[in-house]
C-alpha cells in the first residue's frame, strides 16, 4: 500500500521520502508545495486548506497507483496538509522513487499536476484586509496518462 495521508500536522518530508526508498531505486524526486507570502500581487497572511476526505483519500491513492502502473518500478507517497498553514509551511509533499531519474521526475510532476486538478481539496487565502477561497479547476476522475 502506498503511503497516502491527509494530516493537520506539519509534514516531515523525510518520512514521505523514506516511504518510497527501496534498494532498487536509484532516484527519488520530492516535491514540496510551500505557502508563499504573496499571490497575484497580494500579501498573504496565512492559508486554510479544507478537504473532502472520503473522496480526497481515494483520489490520492489512485494517483499513487497510477504512478506505479504507468512508470515501471516507480513508487509514490503523497501527504497533504489541511487546516491552518503559515508562510513557509509545506501544504503537500510528494515523493517518487524509481530505478532511474527520468521516471522519478516525470511521475512526480504528473502526480502534483494531477493532485491540483483532481483531488477535492480547497485553499482559502487570508490577507490583512480580507480573504477568499481560491477557485481552481473543475475536478473529476483521474485520467491515466499515455
Amino acid at each position: 500500500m502506498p503511503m497516502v495521508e491527509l494530516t493537520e500536522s506539519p509534514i516531515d518530508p523525510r518520512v514521505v521520502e523514506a516511504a518510497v526508498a527501496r534498494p532498487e531505486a536509484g532516484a527519488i524526486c520530492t516535491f514540496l508545495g510551500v505557502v508563499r507570502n504573496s499571490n497575484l500581487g497580494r500579501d498573504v497572511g496565512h492559508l486554510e486548506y479544507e478537504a473532502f476526505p472520503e473522496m480526497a483519500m481515494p483520489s490520492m491513492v489512485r494517483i499513487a497507483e497510477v504512478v506505479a502502473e504507468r512508470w515501471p518500478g516507480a513508487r509514490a507517497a503523497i501527504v497533504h496538509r489541511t487546516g491552518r498553514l503559515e508562510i513557509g509551511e509545506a501544504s503537500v509533499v510528494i515523493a517518487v522513487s524509481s530505478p532511474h531519474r527520468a521516471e522519478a521526475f516525470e511521475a512526480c510532476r504528473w502526480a502534483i499536476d494531477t493532485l491540483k486538478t483532481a483531488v477535492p481539496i480547497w485553499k482559502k487565502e487570508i490577507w490583512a484586509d480580507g480573504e477568499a477561497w481560491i477557485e481552481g479547476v473543475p475536478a473529476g476522475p483521474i485520467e491515466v496518462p499515455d
Partner: protein
Amino acid sequence: MTVQIRLFAMFRETAGADRLEAPADAADTVNELWAWLVARHPELDRHVPAAAVNAQWARMDARVADGDEVAFLPPVSGG
C-alpha cells in the same frame, strides 16, 4: 426518506452549512438537487459545481435515490 447534501469550502461558507437534508422527493437528479439548493441559497447560483454521489464522481444528470449522499464541489485548489 431524505437525501444528504454535503458542501465544502466556498459552497459551505456561502450556504452556512456543511450538511443539509433534502426530502427525497425534492429532486430526481443531481442537477435538480442543485436547483433545490440554489432556491434556498440563491448566492450559490453563480457557481458551477462538480458533483459526487456517495463519494463517487457523478454527472449532473445522474439520478438521486433515497438515502444518497450528494456532494457539491467548487473548483478544486489543493496542492
